[in-house]
Structure formats: structure tokens, C-alpha cells
């Protein structure tokens, strides 16, 4: 099964996926399935989730992101959430959801550079 709403691009050992503006339940679940398959197929070491466009992360979406990160970790890949809007970050902090176990980066570029660093 594929999730055309969230294409996953491969850059060497890295998978990059751009999440859509609205994280609706079905899209996220399809995406999680597709991503785990791709991690398995490609043996990617890192998954960068570009959330630049995401305008709202409520506790349901936060749980989905945490589960995706946990699933990726079990498959040997780390997940970096890239480009969180400051309005979303402030709101998540007030919800009391610090997304434990999920790395963040300012942008996809930062996430990729960090990987290439020392």
C-alpha cells in the first residue's frame, strides 16, 4: 500500500518525507505503514520528517509521531523532525508534550547537514 499524500524520497541512507498540512488520522497511519516498509527495504539509517507545512500538532498527532519514531528505532533508523513551526512548538510545550525520543532540527537542510557533520 502506498500513501501518495506523503511521498518518501530516498537520499542515500536517508529517507525524507514531507508531511502534509493536515495530519489526518488515515493519512498518518498509511504513512507509518509505508515508512516502515521503506526503512526495511532501504535499510535507511535516518528518517527526516519535514513538518514545515504542519500547522497543528495535537496530542493525537504527537502520539502518532512518537509511535513512528519508536517503530523506526526498532528497525534501526533514527527519526528527525525537521522544520517545526514556532507556533506549533509553543503549543506542544503547553500541552506538556515534549516528544521524548524524537530528535528535532530547524530545517531539512539542518537535519541533513547534522548527519554529514563530525
Amino acid at each position: 500500500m502506498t500513501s501518495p499524500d506523503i511521498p518518501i524520497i530516498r537520499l542515500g541512507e536517508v529517507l525524507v518525507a514531507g508531511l502534509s498540512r493536515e495530519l489526518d488520522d488515515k493519512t498518518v497511519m498509511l504513512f507509518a505503514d509505508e515508512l516502515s516498509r521503506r526503512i526495511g527495504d532501504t535499510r535507511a539509517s535516518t528518517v527526516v520528517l519535514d513538518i514545515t507545512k504542519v500547522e497543528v500538532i495535537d496530542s493525537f498527532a504527537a502520539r502518532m509521531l512518537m509511535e513512528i519514531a519508536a517503530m523506526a528505532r526498532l528497525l534501526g533508523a533514527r527519526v528527525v523532525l525537521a522544520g517545526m513551526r514556532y507556533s506549533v512548538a509553543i503549543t506542544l510545550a503547553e500541552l506538556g508534550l515534549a516528544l521524548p525520543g524524537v530528535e528535532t532540527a530547524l530545517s531539512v537542510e539542518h537535519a541533513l547537514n547534522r548527519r554529514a557533520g563530525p
Partner: protein
Amino acid sequence: MTHSDLSSTSLQTVPIHTEEDLLTARHAVRAAALAEGLGLVAQTKLVTAASELVRNCYVHGGGGVLRIERVLPPPRRGLRIVVADQGPGIEDPDAALADGYSTGPGLGHGLGGARRLVDEFELRSEPGRGTTVVITRWTA
């Protein structure tokens, strides 16, 4: 605190019966927040709080309705969101408001989180008769 009184006008009502309705409700709250002149952070907080409440209404309350109201002075100008269902209600509201408390697979940060994200928060629930949550964000 009373609502739906003379000092508020109803702007929009969104029935909450499907997952799509959750999105519709979010969009309606976003549009209202924008129209009332709330800034990006305030908009995001209000939409996120409303999102928590409509999901609770859908998941725990068996569906219901979201109503958007404009509060007029007195006391102040603001945007009010009412989310109501006629589901099982909440036995222990204090427990339900505590972070980490969930009777389902959720993170249990929805109710307490929503309370922190707005200026006014009121939870009314009667076991067996339903739950109504009213949140208000002052806009001036």
C-alpha cells in the same frame, strides 16, 4: 459562568460525528480565530485546544457538536468554543484533567492541555448524561 447569554452570538455550529468532522471543526475554529484578529500563536493554541476537545467528543463522547461564539463586552471581547456531547460523561473530572490520565490509548494530555492553552476553561459533565467543555480566548 454563563454562556449563550445576551453577551455572546453564535457564529457557527459543526456537528461532530466522523473523523472528517474533526478537520472541519479545526478549519472553522482557525477561520474564526483569523477573522477575530488573533495572532498566529494564539490561533494555533485555540485550534489545538479545540482539536483536543472535538476528538474527545468523538472518541469518548460518541459524537456531538462544536459551537463557535463571539463573546461581547461585558466583560470582554473574545472567542468561545463550546463542545458538547451526550455520551457517558466523566466520573472524575479532576482525574481526567491530570496529565497522563487516559481511559483509552491516548496520551491523556488533551483536557489538561486544552485548559492550559486558553484563557477560560469550564468542564461540565454528568455521568450518564454527557460532557460539555467551554473554552474562551479573549481577543481584546
